[in-house]
C-alpha cells in the first residue's frame, strides 16, 4: 500500500513568487493535514482538508491557502513568498477525519527554499 506522497521533494523560489506543493493521502483516507516545520522549530499546524472542504487552519496568514480535489489529493499554495517561509512542509493523512488521535501518516515533505 502506498503511503502519503508529496511533490516536489525540493522547491526553490524567489521572494514574492508563488509556490505550489502537492500531497496524495493514503488510499481510503479523506483527510489531509498540512504542517510547516521551520528550522529549529517543531511542526506547526497549517491546514486541514476533508471531503474537499477546508475544516480548520492554524495561525498563518491568508497567503497560505490550498484545496482538496475529488480524489482527496491536496495542494498547498503559498503566495507572495517571504524569506521566512523557507521550511519543510509536511503533509499527513489519518484514517478517521479530524481525529489525530489515531495514527497520522506523514509524507516525506517538500523542502521550500525562498531566496
Amino acid at each position, binding site marked *: 500500500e502506498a503511503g502519503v506522497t508529496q511533490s516536489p521533494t525540493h522547491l526553490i523560489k524567489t521572494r514574492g513568487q508563488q509556490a505550489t506543493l502537492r500531497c496524495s493521502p493514503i488510499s481510503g483516507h479523506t483527510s489531509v*493535514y498540512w*504542517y510547516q516545520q521551520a528550522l*529549529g*522549530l*517543531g*511542526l*506547526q*499546524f497549517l491546514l*486541514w482538508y476533508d471531503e474537499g472542504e477546508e*475544516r*480548520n487552519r*492554524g495561525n498563518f496568514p491568508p497567503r497560505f491557502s490550498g484545496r482538496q480535489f475529488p480524489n482527496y489529493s491536496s495542494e498547498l499554495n503559498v503566495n507572495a513568498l517571504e524569506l521566512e517561509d523557507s521550511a*519543510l512542509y*509536511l503533509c*499527513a493523512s489519518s484514517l478517521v477525519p*479530524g*481525529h*489525530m*488521535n489515531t*495514527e*497520522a501518516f*506523514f*509524507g*516525506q*515533505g517538500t*523542502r521550500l527554499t525562498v531566496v
Partner: protein
Amino acid sequence: AQTVTQSQPEMSVQEAETVTLSCTYDTSESDYYLFWYKQPPSRQMILVIRQEAYKQQNATENRFSVNFQKAAKSFSLKISDSQLGDAAMYFCAYSLADKLIFGTGTRLQVFP
C-alpha cells in the same frame, strides 16, 4: 493554551545503552492522546509510540516505552538497547482534536 516542551535539544547514547527523552505538556483537558514521533534524515515522521491519557498503564513498543505521569503532565520516552538506527530527531506531540501540537524536538545521536 496547549503547549508541549522538550527541554533537551540534543542527547547522545552509546549503542546498546538506555536513554530517556523528556517531554512536558500543558493542557486543561482530561482526555487526550500523547505521541512520540521519530524523524530520521529521510524527513518522514514515523510514529514510535502512543499513549491514551485515560489509561494509567504506560505504553510499550518493543524497545520503546514511556513514563506517563498525568498529574505532573510529563511524558518521557525510554529507548532500551539503543541501536545506530535510532539516531534521529524525536518529537513529542499532544493530540488536540484535528491537530497535533508538537514540541521542538530532541536530536538523538547514537555512538558505536
